[in-house]
C-alpha cells in the first residue's frame, strides 16, 4: 500500500500543516482585494504570499517555497534526499512564468523552463535523479500523487517527494481576467450567487512510500484516476463526463457510505461547480457531503491537489468535515450536501476531485488505515 509519511503546506495562512489546518478550521481566509498590483488595470481578490519575505537574486519565489516546504516536510522523517531511490515530482502549471516579463528580473531566461526550476530544487537537496514535472493544468496536484503511487508500486523508488507549487503573477491574473473567470469578491463555491474564482499562492508537499502493513492511523493513497471530457479545451463537459469517470474508478468497490466527504474542486465558477454536481450525482455520490477549500486559499493551481489532500487528511484526523467558506445557498442543479459550517464525522476516507483546462479531470481516494 502507498502510504503518506510526511507533509507540509506553505501558504499565506501559515508555514506548517498544523498552522494551516487550524486557520482553516477557525474560518480564516487569506483572500484580500488588490488594486493596481503589478500594474494590472483591474483590481482582483487573491491569496498572496509576502513577496519581500522571499526576495532573493539566486532563487525565484517558486523555488524558495518549494525548498522550504520540502525541507519542513522532511524534518525528522529520516529520509536522505541524496539517495538514488528518492524521486522528486513537482506539480506546477506556470512555474517561473513571470521571467518572461524581462522588466521583472535578473534571472537567466532558461530558469523559465519547468525542468530547470525542478532541477534547482533537486540540486538543493543533492538528489541525483531527473525530477519529473507534472504540468496538467489545474489537476496537476492529484496527477503528481497518482504518478508517485505508480513509481512506488513499480518498485523503482523507496520514497517519492511530491511538491505542488504556483505563485501568482500579472501573466496568470490577467489571463483569468481576460477569461472573465475571476470573482470581484471573495469566491462562493457552489453558491447561487457565485461569480467566479480567486487565485492563490502556495507550495505543498507530500512524501509517499510503499508498505506491506499499514497502521490504523496511517494515510493510504488507495486509488486514483485521470479522465478526459473529450469535449472542449476551456469549458467543462455538460455531462460531467471526465469527472464522473474518474470518480467511478477512484471509488471502485468502496461503499459511498464509508466516505466522510468529497473535497471537490469547487472553484466557484458557474460552469465548474455545476459540472461537479452532475458528475457527483452520476457517480451515485449525491448523499456524500461535499466541500471546497477555495474560500480559504483561492485556487492555488499546481499546488491545489496536494494542499487540499493534506488539509482533508487533517480534517478526517480531527473528525471534521470542513465548512465551505463563502457558501450560503445551493446554486447547482443537482442536489449536493454542502454546508458553510464544520460538521462532525467518524468516517475515515475521502475523495479529492479536480478538473482543469484541456478537459482533464482527476479523482483520488484516500483512506486512513487503508481499505478494510
Amino acid at each position, binding site marked *: 500500500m502507498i502510504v503518506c509519511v510526511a507533509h507540509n503546506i506553505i501558504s499565506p495562512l501559515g508555514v506548517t500543516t498544523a498552522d494551516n489546518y487550524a486557520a482553516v478550521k477557525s474560518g480564516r481566509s487569506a483572500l484580500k482585494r488588490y488594486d493596481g498590483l503589478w*500594474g494590472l*488595470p483591474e483590481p482582483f481578490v487573491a491569496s498572496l504570499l509576502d513577496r519581500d519575505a522571499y526576495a532573493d537574486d539566486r532563487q525565484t519565489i517558486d523555488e524558495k517555497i518549494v525548498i522550504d516546504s520540502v525541507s519542513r516536510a522532511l524534518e525528522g522523517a529520516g529520509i536522505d534526499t541524496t539517495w538514488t531511490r528518492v524521486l522528486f515530482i513537482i506539480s506546477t*502549471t*506556470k*512555474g517561473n*512564468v513571470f521571467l*518572461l*516579463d524581462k522588466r521583472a528580473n535578473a534571472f537567466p531566461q532558461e530558469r*523559465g*523552463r*519547468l*525542468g*530547470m526550476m*525542478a*532541477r534547482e530544487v533537486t540540486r538543493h537537496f543533492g538528489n541525483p535523479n*531527473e*525530477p*519529473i*514535472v*507534472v*504540468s*496538467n*493544468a489545474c489537476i496537476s496536484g492529484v*496527477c503528481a500523487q497518482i*504518478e508517485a*503511487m*505508480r*513509481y512506488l*508500486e*513499480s518498485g*523503482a523508488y523507496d520514497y517519492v517527494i511530491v511538491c505542488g507549487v504556483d505563485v501568482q503573477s*500579472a*501573466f496568470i491574473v*490577467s*489571463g*483569468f*481576467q*481576460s*477569461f*472573465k473567470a475571476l470573482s470581484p469578491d471573495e469566491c462562493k463555491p457552489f453558491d447561487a450567487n457565485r461569480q467566479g474564482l480567486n487565485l492563490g499562492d502556495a507550495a505543498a508537499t507530500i512524501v509517499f512510500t510503499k508498505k506491506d502493513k499499514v497502521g490504523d492511523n496511517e494515510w493510504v493513497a488507495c486509488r486514483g*484516476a*485521470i*479522465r*478526459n*471530457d*473529450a*469535449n*472542449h*479545451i*476551456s469549458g467543462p463537459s455538460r455531462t460531467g*463526463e*471526465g469527472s464522473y*469517470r474518474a470518480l467511478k*474508478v477512484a471509488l471502485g468497490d468502496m461503499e459511498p457510505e464509508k466516505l466522510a466527504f468529497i473535497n471537490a474542486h469547487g472553484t466557484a465558477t458557474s460552469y465548474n461547480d455545476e459540472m461537479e454536481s452532475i458528475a457527483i450525482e452520476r457517480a451515485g455520490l449525491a448523499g456524500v457531503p461535499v466541500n471546497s477549500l477555495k474560500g480559504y486559499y483561492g485556487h492555488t493551481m499546481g499546488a491545489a491537489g496536494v494542499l487540499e489532500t493534506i488539509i482533508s487528511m487533517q480534517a478526517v484526523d480531527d473528525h471534521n468535515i470542513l465548512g465551505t467558506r463563502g457558501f450560503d445557498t445551493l446554486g447547482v442543479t443537482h442536489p449536493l450536501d454542502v454546508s458553510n459550517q464544520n460538521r462532525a464525522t467518524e468516517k475515515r476516507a475521502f475523495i479529492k476531485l479536480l478538473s*482543469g*483546462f*484541456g*478537459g*482533464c479531470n482527476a479523482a483520488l481516494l484516500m483512506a486512513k488505515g487503508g481499505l478494510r
Partner: protein
Amino acid sequence: MMRHSVIITPDHVIVDGNPLMHNEKGSVLLTELYRNNIGDYPKFFKMDTLSKLGFIASELLLNAEGNRSFEPREDRAVILFNRHASLQADTAYQATIQDPDNFFPSPAAFVYTLPNIVTGEIAIRNKYFGETSFIVIDDYDEKIIMENLKNAFQDPMTTSIIGGWVDCSDEEHFEAKIFLIEKEN
C-alpha cells in the same frame, strides 16, 4: 509493445520508419501536412504550435493504425512529454500584456498557455475519455518516458497509449517523436 511511430521535425516527417514526402519546412510544413493528410478539422488553424504539432503527429499515427472509427473509448490514454512546456504560447500571450499602453490580454491566446491542452485536443478529436497527461523533463530521455508509460498501464482501464515527445520553443523550432504502444499481457 510499440505498434506505430511518427517523427516530425521542421524538415523531416517519418511514419513507421518511412519518410513521408513533403515540400515545405518549418511552420508551413505543419499546414501542408494538415492539408495533405487531414483537411476536415478547421479547429486546427486556431491551435498554438504545440497543439498543431501534437495533433498532426497523432493523426499520422492513427492513420497508420488504420480502421479509424471515432467511437468513444476510455481504454486509450494520451501521455506526452516535452522540455519547453507551452513556451511558444506563453511568449505569444506575454506580448498581449507586455506594454501597459497596449494592454489587451487575449483569452484565445491564454487558453493555450498550458502544455496539456494538446492532449485535450487529441482526446476531443478522437473521443478519448481515457487518461490524458503532460509531463515536463528538461532533456529528452527515452528511459524516463518508457518507464513512465509502462507505469501508466497500472490504470485499470488503460490498454493502449499515444505517448512520447512533443516539444516546441517557437513556431519554427519543434520536434515530435510519438508512438502507439499497447499493454503487454
